[in-house]
């Protein structure tokens, strides 16, 4: 078998393995999702239920909640594999580590990022968003959350196995999420006035995703090697 096809096969195997493992522990998934729902639901109770205000703050709140939710889930990205020794096997595998890392990130996104995109209509309902804005929000989340998972993976690899890793992780990763937050929330805000205006925002988010896709797995692989020496 050629090298390329084994690589693809390994990629698929890792994704399927992570998905299967996660399906056996569904509570973990639901915790992240409900964290998002609860955070989003708390704001109207704190800020007040004036519809005009809610519509205005919806993009920012949805995105900050998405940032926090995806970050909370990051801690588990490599922790399980680190504890049971799978990670060591991965480091020794003939396939490039960055490909294996990418597979893990893809699985992680399918489990934590995609559910956020699918639950977004609930935010639209709570914050009285128009159908157009809601569509843009889902699209922006769909393009933006992979970047969060990719960049977050670097932080997760760096803080692997550390005491208080979760809080530290947020300190390292949240500042790097800022561009995604700005343009993700900006796209939804812009969609209120004109849907056509959102195009540059979405292009930028796509650009970030491609950039992260190229560099982040490599950096994560380097971080994993440093952390498990």
């Amino acid at each position, binding site marked *: 078998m050629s090298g390329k096809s084994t690589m693809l096969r390994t990629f698929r195997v890792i994704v399927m393995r992570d998905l299967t493992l996660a399906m056996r522990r569904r509570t973990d998934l639901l915790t992240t999702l409900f964290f998002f729902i609860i955070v989003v639901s708390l704001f109207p109770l704190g800020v007040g239920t004036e519809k005009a205000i809610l519509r205005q703050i919806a993009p920012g709140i949805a995105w900050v909640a998405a940032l926090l939710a995806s970050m909370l889930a990051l801690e588990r990205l490599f922790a399980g594999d680190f504890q049971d020794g799978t990670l060591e096997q991965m480091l020794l595998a003939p396939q490039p580590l960055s490909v294996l890392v990418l597979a893990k990130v893809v699985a992680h996104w399918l489990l934590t990022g995609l559910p956020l995109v699918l639950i977004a209509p609930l935010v639209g309902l709570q914050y009285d968003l128009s159908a157009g804005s809601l569509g843009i929000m889902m699209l922006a989340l769909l393009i933006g959350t992979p970047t969060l998972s990719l960049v977050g993976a670097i932080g997760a690899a760096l803080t692997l196995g550390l005491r208080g890793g979760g809080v*530290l992780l947020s300190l390292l990763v949240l*500042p790097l999420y800022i561009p995604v937050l700005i343009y993700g929330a900006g796209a939804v805000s812009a969609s209120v006035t004109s849907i056509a205006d959102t195009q540059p925002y979405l292009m930028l988010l796509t650009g970030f995703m491609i950039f992260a896709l190229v*560099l982040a797995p490599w950096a994560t692989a380097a971080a994993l090697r440093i952390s498990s020496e």
Partner: protein
Amino acid sequence: MSINWFKYSSPQTFYPLAGKMTPWFNWIAGILAVVGLYWGFFETPHILSEQKQYYRILFVHVPAAWMSMWLYLMMVGWAVVGLIFNTRLSFMMAASIAPSGAIFTFLTLWTGAFWGQTSWGTWWDWDPRMTSELILLFLYVGYMALQSAIDDTRRADRASALLALVGAICIPIIYWSVNCPDPNECTALHQQSSMSAVEPNIRIAWLIMVFSFWMYAFAIAFMRVRNVILERERNAAWVTELVGRKK
């Protein structure tokens, strides 16, 4: 004749060298600070009318802002050298620069708040530059937090170096996104910094203060790196000997 630069990359040879250079940098920094402050306070009053006296805040604000950014670059530079050549001293330098960088970043924000209150009437504004400076502070704090959270020095050095590098790659994107939150109408929102537009006497005072802070940054980084070297090389024979002589 070529100088063997790698000779100084060993902590043992760098330790006394840093010790010898520290007072020099400190003196130069002190003298420049006196000259710069004299110039800023006494050679400019005819330019600054009574109402414009708050302008003097900039004599610390501008140098601190420059240093906050410059030191991050220096830190990343040493981190990258460390990752490539695997020299322990480079990581120690990076770790010694970070706290000074964070302090200068905080000073930039602090003096910026007082400047903002006098000239714009608000302590804090989400001006792109202030926001970027705040994010820079987060990056410094993240670097130091990661460094101190890892007990194994080798891993701490390399992990935080990688983090600094990732931060450095992200900084232009962060800066750009903060500057231009709406890509549909992206123009420079903030006042452009143009050194040439500034009155020559004020510019002189600024530049002298920048050099003063710069020399101070060298001095304090060398002082700190000596502590780091002592701490980490405590089992080396030369440190034991050195400690014995100090008695």
